């Protein structure tokens, strides 16, 4: 007869945040010497204020100690035109001082399985897939025990003063803005029509991601043609894959308005100049038309250490399908 597990698996309850944040800061500080402790404002931004919802499951001992967490950034999605959800796994952790002998699977895996039971599945109100950018340790567990698979090895698009050659288009008006315009939803609808799998970009989501994030500031520009919004970029001085850069954090541009790309790229290039950043960097799927479109404007391609992985819950959304159909940018990630 097996003994019961010395912990409870359960979803977040109001009031848990102090003990969760304490565990997060303690566990990550022990494994990463460069780790900067997270503050409560950032925790609340991630898990309380995201307009797409919250994904958080923990393992808690009877003494009230959090010994594992499976958490995610929820995303409202359009997949093949229908609304649903996905979540990006972040902050995966298990307390290394919590030992259970030879008990298998371990507490972290069981926490993830409970998270999936709670949130994931092949239904519009559940996460169609769970994805992430794993570090090596997480990837080893993810592939062997949680059926995560590689979607692609991620290359980066990058440009410098020497390579960038954004094409000017006099019919496009670009201006820097400090809030997302209401008609971003029309632009999103046109961009989404070209993609079979894309996270919703609306005013609440974009504002949460870029305007409300504690401790970070982003520059936003919109492109209009005869008054119609045809493109939007978000830029920030950042560090990606171990190097400083200006990051194209969001790239939401109608492919039917190619002139907007050059004008918005010129805006980002100017942001780079002002910040003294050498490289402008974007992350996009290599299967999307803008992958080539940005190369035509002087962006080059280079490797990164990153590889998005996914655990899918509907057979049709397997990693190969995601590779061909899923549009994402830095905005979808917690990388910048």
């Amino acid at each position, binding site marked *: 007869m097996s003994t019961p597990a010395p912990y409870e698996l359960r979803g977040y309850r109001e009031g848990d945040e102090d003990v969760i944040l304490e565990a997060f800061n303690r566990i990550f500080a022990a494994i990463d010497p460069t780790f900067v402790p997270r503050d409560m404002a950032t925790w609340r931004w991630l898990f309380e204020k995201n307009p797409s919802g919250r994904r958080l499951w923990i393992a808690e001992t009877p003494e009230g100690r959090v010994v594992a967490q499976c958490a995610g950034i929820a995303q409202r999605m359009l997949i093949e035109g229908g609304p649903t959800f996905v979540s990006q796994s972040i902050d995966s952790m298990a307390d290394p001082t919590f030992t259970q002998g030879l008990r298998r699977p371990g507490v972290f895996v069981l926490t993830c399985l409970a998270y999936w039971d709670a949130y994931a599945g092949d239904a519009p109100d559940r996460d169609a897939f769970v994805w992430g950018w794993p570090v*090596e340790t997480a990837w080893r567990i993810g*592939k062997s025990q949680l059926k995560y*698979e*590689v979607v*692609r*090895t991620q*290359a980066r698009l990058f440009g410098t003063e020497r390579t960038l050659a954004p094409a000017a288009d006099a019919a496009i008006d670009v201006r820097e803005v400090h809030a997302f315009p209401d008609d971003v939803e029309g632009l999103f609808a046109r961009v989404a029509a070209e993609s079979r799998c894309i996270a919703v970009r609306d005013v609440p989501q974009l504002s949460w991601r870029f305007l409300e994030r504690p401790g970070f500031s982003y520059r936003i520009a919109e492109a209009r043609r005869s008054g119609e919004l045809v493109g939007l970029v978000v830029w920030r001085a950042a560090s990606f894959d171990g190097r400083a850069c200006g990051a194209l954090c969001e790239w939401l541009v109608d492919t039917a308005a190619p002139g907007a790309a050059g004008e918005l790229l010129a805006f980002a290039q100017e942001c780079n100049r002002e910040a003294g950043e050498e490289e402008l960097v974007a992350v996009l799927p*290599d*299967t999307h038309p803008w*992958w*080539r479109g940005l*190369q*035509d404007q002087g962006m*080059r*391609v*280079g*490797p990164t250490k990153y*590889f998005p992985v996914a655990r899918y819950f509907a057979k049709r959304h397997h990693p*190969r399908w995601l*590779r061909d159909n899923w549009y994402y940018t830095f905005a979808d990630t917690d990388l910048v």
Partner: protein
Amino acid sequence: MSNQQGNTYEIREYRPGDELSIVETFNRVFTGDDGRFGSRDLENWRWAYERNPAGWRIFVALHEGRVVSQCAAWPFRTILEGRETIFAQGVDSMTDPRHRAGLKRPGLFVNTAMEFFDRYGGADRDVVHYGMPIEQAFKMGYTFLKYEVVRTQLALVLTHVDPPDALPPGVERIERFDEQARWLYDRCSGAFGASAIRDDAFLDWRFSRPGARYTTIGVRDGDGVLRGYAVFRRAEFAGQELGVVCDWLVPPDEVEVAELLELGLRRLAAEEGAVALALVVPDWSPWFAWFQERLWRVYPTSYTMCSRQFARRYDPRWLRDHWWYTLADTDIV
């Protein structure tokens, strides 16, 4: 080994004489299936397995004396962190459809593959097996055979070939390689953590594939010593008929050699009516960046490079960052 229907299978290493049945089964399994594979004749089989200077890797499953499943690979002599070993490319995985239900899950092919890997894989034998499997084979390999993704494969593509009127002065056609190929490889391979040895035995074999026509161009110094080469073939790659650069070997600091060869490739593309050129090199290579400066653009392909390692150090991440390969290391062209 028998299944519930009473079918008996013998799984064993290849023996001379099996090849007729292997080729017959290959043609039944692949021909006309998805157009990716042409029919195979015995001459092609002998080239692939008997003439490869590094040997062969073949396990078969037989039913009533006929080959009904195969797991096979082309071994390549490889320099891995300074020592010679073998990397082997998995090819021609197959099971006769009438026997796909043979043996219980995980099935006849996986059982054949398990014996294949037991026989050939090991830190002191084939250190890495790799390949670019079709989706179905990848799923099976991932589930049962420890295949992992090295990278989703990108290709450099030049869509506006803009050829010179003739091969540039200093670029010559090479009919056969000699000992200078190894000299050149030795000058290049110091920058690679792992790479298949390019010598005359390998290159002359690799580019004498029956039914395929390759053109090799090279650049020599004033003493006639080979400074770099490229191998061209017009072929289908990633679903398109292209001028394919099957192999490329130039020391990274000899850009003037590369410039001549790249112009030579444009010329060959024009001569053979190819509207675009494609090349695969690792994304960490200086050549990956250099070709982009020459207006080659990076495109996705349908291919995924996968591996199974038999020494823990050489996991997919290590291979992604250190292993030099081109399409010459695959059976695609």
